[in-house]
């Protein structure tokens, strides 16, 4: 111990380097102005605010079509809360995104709190909790597509798209047979190259069928025996 005490300056040096290291670390990690990496860390919770309640049907106006859709979906399940995803999707289709207004309307019909629906909406990639452009282009950038050039495709699309197209890098979309590919407003299209980007965006904006020759739904199965057994001579004699 005594040897250590004598070496007090050394430990000071050590603590100084540790502080320097900590300071270096602080600057390396992106942080908010308040020093934390968590947004809103410096904002106090409003303790006076009432907890969000299940909206009062008297006060919330729900579009008739949306109400009917949600009520129909709730009847599909033993527990009405199972309809949360279909209901949120219906509301998103109507409002463009899961806006506070949309959540309130769904909450009102489903008899749950908007907070519950928000917790659900923030979990799923396809439910948008911020306003987004009208058209969705999901570019698969997972392993199989990325091995075939999906990252370049995504960057090019992203740079070429304007404010009217929601270009997102998406996890495996389950169409590695047409890699690299994209889901354009729900339609699977591929294989795509960066050269296809201008045509894709033009078609999309003009409301035309996007790259009609590249739709996955028109592609025959890869298995040669699957193709053979689908030939005309085999019609009706399969099983």
């Amino acid at each position, binding site marked *: 111990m005594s040897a250590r005490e004598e070496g007090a300056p050394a430990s000071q040096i050590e603590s100084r380097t540790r502080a320097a290291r900590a300071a270096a670390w602080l600057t390396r990690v992106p942080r908010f102005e308040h020093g934390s990496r968590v947004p809103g860390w410096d904002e106090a919770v409003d303790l006076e605010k009432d907890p969000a309640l299940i909206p009062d049907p008297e006060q919330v106006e729900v579009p008739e079509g949306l109400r009917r859709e949600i009520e129909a979906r709730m009847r*599909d*399940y*033993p*527990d009405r*809360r*199972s*309809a*949360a*995803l*279909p209901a*949120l*999707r219906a509301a998103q289709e109507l409002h463009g995104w899961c806006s506070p207004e949309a959540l309130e309307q769904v909450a009102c019909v489903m008899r749950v709190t908007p907070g519950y629906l928000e*917790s*659900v909406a923030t*979990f*799923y*990639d*396809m*439910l948008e909790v911020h306003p987004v452009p009208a058209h969705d282009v*999901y570019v698969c950038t*997972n*392993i*199989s597509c*990325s*091995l*075939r050039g999906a990252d370049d495709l995504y960057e090019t699309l992203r740079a070429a798209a304007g404010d009217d197209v929601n270009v997102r890098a*998406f*996890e*495996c*979309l*389950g*169409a*590695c*047979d*047409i*890699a690299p590919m994209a*889901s354009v407003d*729900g*339609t*699977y299209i591929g294989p795509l190259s960066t050269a296809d980007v201008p045509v894709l965006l033009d078609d999309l904006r003009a409301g035309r069928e996007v790259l009609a020759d590249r739709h*996955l*739904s028109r592609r*025959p*199965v*890869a*298995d*040669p*025996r*699957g*193709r053979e*057994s*689908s030939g005309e001579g*085999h*019609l*009706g004699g*399969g*099983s």
Partner: protein
Amino acid sequence: MAVAPALLLFDGIDIPGLRTLEVYEGRGGYESLRKALAQEPQEVLATLEASEIRGRGGAGFAMGKKISFLPKGAIERYLVCNADESEPGTFKDRELLEKNPHMLIEGIVIASYAAGASRSFIYIRGEYVEPALALEQAIAEARAAGYIGEHILGSGHSLSLVLHRGAGAYICGEETALLDSLEGKRGNPRLKPPFPANQGLYQGPTLINNVETLATVPSIVRLGGEEYARIGVANSTGTKLVSVSGHVQRPGNYEVELGIPSRELIYDLAGGPPEGRKVKCWFPGGSSSPVLTGDDLDVPYDFDSMAKAGSMLGSGAVIVVDDATPILDVALKVAKFYRHESCGKCTPCREGTNWTVKMLERIETGEATPMDLEIMASVQEHIIGNCLCVLGDAMAMPIGSMIAKFRDEFEDHIERARAARGTA
């Protein structure tokens, strides 16, 4: 090469209009259902057990055994078809759903009869818009024709079927997360046990099967369990849809007899890597399976052989990586995916995936030391078996295997990146 057995799942898959009831019935569709309903549920279950079919979704659990685990008695049982197909590299169910939805519906009705389930659900991933549309139309047709509903074909069996669309979350392919999602919650996995067979959907006994497993059921009933078990090899019976993707010339779905040499699958069917390139590594069962190398191409493609080779058959998704691709790129892609998809419930997975990505990025930027490889390997070991579900394991297994098998390349990459950083 032995004579390949007849196609069971892809027979006539591209016949125009196969997705309609008219064409499907014209090809003998729903005959297996009639045959099954004429038997006692126990007989149908015995047929499924005799077929020895193992689940096609990834875990490879025997389907018949799964059904037999359901508690007996007057209790509401559920059947859930897992159509969330989101394991990277897997796209086999999509082809079935979109082109032959009635085969799946027939399989669901037969399986529900054997399991005594009165309510069934298909959980399809939200991204599958066109397959969902095909299924929706097929369900409406089947309902109108009396294949779904009260007293199916005049029997005592009744079944409701609801198509439930997800909204984009890989974790919802995990069976208990899927159940939470189906109940309208965030898709967080549950603690097991209790297993879904005892306490699943709405706390009731639940049978969960993959699309391909259920779509095979009509063929099993048609052939008979023993006859089906003759296809394939011991402990891996039947045919399997395999999705081959990545660096191959003919990526796509192939129906093969289990037990064929992997080389046949990758080279003969999918055309192998582009001219002049060699197989560097391949995932035999989706991006969650430990990688195999070019030396493992003669391993038979079946459940046990893959396990013996240190990997797994998983969902039957073969991803081929050629020798022009740095292993670091593959590792980083895989790790980033699992980091994004971790639901955050268990610490080893939430933190482990994040730190693995950070350490791999350090290699890329030249900040890593060879010691980082040890730390990274130990992080993987600490994830495996320590979480509620296997999402963390699904990253730890392939990353661990890459570090073990391509250690020289990682070390080389570390040194080169460090040198480049030093001179910059």
